[in-house]
């Protein structure tokens, strides 16, 4: 063994694959985190509206969370099949041509605009269709988890606050923005931090469906680290990539604490 200083990091920053993995992981995060949080918060609000059947809905929404990433990825890969998949079949009924969900390196915006005959420049392509499909798997898998946390937060809000706000003439929208959101902010803060950490560690969905392909269209950081370390046995190099991942998480969490943490009430 030889001490190599920072040469692994230098090599890393020159690597095109690593760039691709980094960009894809950020894309994946910026798809799954906002959409996932919005859906789970909306579901929690609806479930909190004092309706019948709460327990049944909660059980159903939570079932995907119990399923392993491997099993969910298998089932979704079957749904996403371009030839015999049920999604393309259903889309076919409303006249949409089959899409190679997990085998399409084209950007999602390019695909959308192509269908109406417009060519978009490369920088506007957006994440690959494959990466979007993988994001859908993750959103489906994790929504129930965040929903339960939001629901617990909502149930802690004292009813008297709403009654007071109603007496003061606040309508439902005002009550949501002035009462619910501020009091829920510690929960939201926690969920945002967790969501970022979970999404930067995405691995299984990629490993069992696309292996980062086609053409690196779904290559993400942890899969890159795994492949470098245990397939190509570049242990030192892969460790450097792992530390970059760690540094990104530390920086992001720090920024979130600084920026959002300040807005968290009480």
């Amino acid at each position, binding site marked *: 063994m030889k001490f190599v200083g920072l040469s692994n990091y230098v090599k890393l920053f020159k690597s095109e694959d690593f760039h691709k993995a980094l960009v894809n992981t950020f894309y994946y995060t910026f798809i799954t985190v906002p959409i996932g949080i919005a859906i789970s918060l909306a*579901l929690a609000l*609806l479930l909190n*509206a004092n*309706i019948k*059947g709460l327990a049944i*809905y*909660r*059980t*159903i*929404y*939570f*079932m*995907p969370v*119990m*399923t*392993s*990433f*491997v*099993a969910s990825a*298998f*089932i*979704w890969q*079957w*749904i996403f*099949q371009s030839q*015999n998949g*049920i999604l393309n*079949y259903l889309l076919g009924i409303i006249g949409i041509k089959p899409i190679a969900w997990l085998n399409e390196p084209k950007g999602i915006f390019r695909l959308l605009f192509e269908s109406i005959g417009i060519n978009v420049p490369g920088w506007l392509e957006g994440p690959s269709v494959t990466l979007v499909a993988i994001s859908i798997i993750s959103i*489906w898998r*994790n*929504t*129930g*988890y965040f929903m*339960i*946390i939001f629901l*617990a937060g909502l149930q802690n809000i004292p009813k008297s606050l709403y009654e007071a706000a109603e007496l003061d003439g606040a309508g439902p929208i005002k009550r949501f923005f002035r009462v619910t959101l501020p009091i829920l902010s510690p929960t939201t803060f*926690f969920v945002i931090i*967790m969501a970022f*950490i*979970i999404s*930067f*560690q995405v*691995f*299984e969905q990629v*490993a*069992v469906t696309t292996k980062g392909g086609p053409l690196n269209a779904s290559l993400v950081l*942890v899969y890159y*680290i*795994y492949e470098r*370390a*245990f397939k190509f046995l570049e*242990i030192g190099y*892969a*460790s450097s990539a*792992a*530390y970059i*991942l*760690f540094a990104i*998480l530390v920086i992001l*969490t720090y920024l979130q604490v600084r920026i959002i943490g300040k807005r968290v009430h009480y």
Partner: protein
Amino acid sequence: MIGKRARRIIGNAAIHTILILGAIIMIFPFIWGVSTSLKDMREVLANPFRIIPSRITFVNYRNVVESIPIVRFFINSLIVSVTITILQLFTCSLSAYAFARIEFPFREVLFYILLATMMIPQHVIMIPVYIILNFFRLIDTYAAMIVPFVSSAFGTFLLRQFFMTVPKELEEAAVLDGCSRLGFLFRILLPLSKPILSTLAIFTFMWSWNNYLWPLVVTNRIEIRTLQYGLAMFKEEGGINWGQLMAGTTISTMPILIIFLIAQKQFIRGITLTGLREE
């Protein structure tokens, strides 16, 4: 002007419509997977798609059991998950008790260091852990899948928080009656902590049952592969037979879903108490 009652009914109907649509999206993949596993090969690829197979057959299940050692994988998953769960309950009880009740130098500092390790993702430390296991010649053994998880910061934290809520007087009384520290922990404190212990047990079991990355990294022999890893390999090596793959997926998912349906309360409580780790 619509009456308040009528408005309420319409509002509720709207909420239920959205929730039911959402529930269908959530549950459909499960139904579709099971449905595919019960179809014969021709129907799996047939148009139009039917949710309920025209002829229910268990041939995919028979084929999957005959063509890959799925029973072996199942037993391996069971061995690994049960061992990890039992060991974690034991070690986390001991360390949580120490952090909650025993005065020793640097206790607070050590506890914060422990909490800090919860923030480090498994994926960041997998390479050094692999090197350590390799040094002890443990790669490709059951031990490699178990040893890194015999204790956890999460479990220690969860139990410590609960132990702190048990009144100190209880221990003082037990000590007066001649009870030793370990005697108090095992005969009085742990029986009192059954709900939180079962929460920890369920989470640990679920997490190790569903773990894919670690067995993939540290094992190679077919005989010791776990279900998740075994299924993924089967898919790669055999080309994809969707009926069989869905049968295998159903087999691997059933135990966890059954445990969840039985012990739902513990799950929900565990998550709301701690936010739960997700790795």
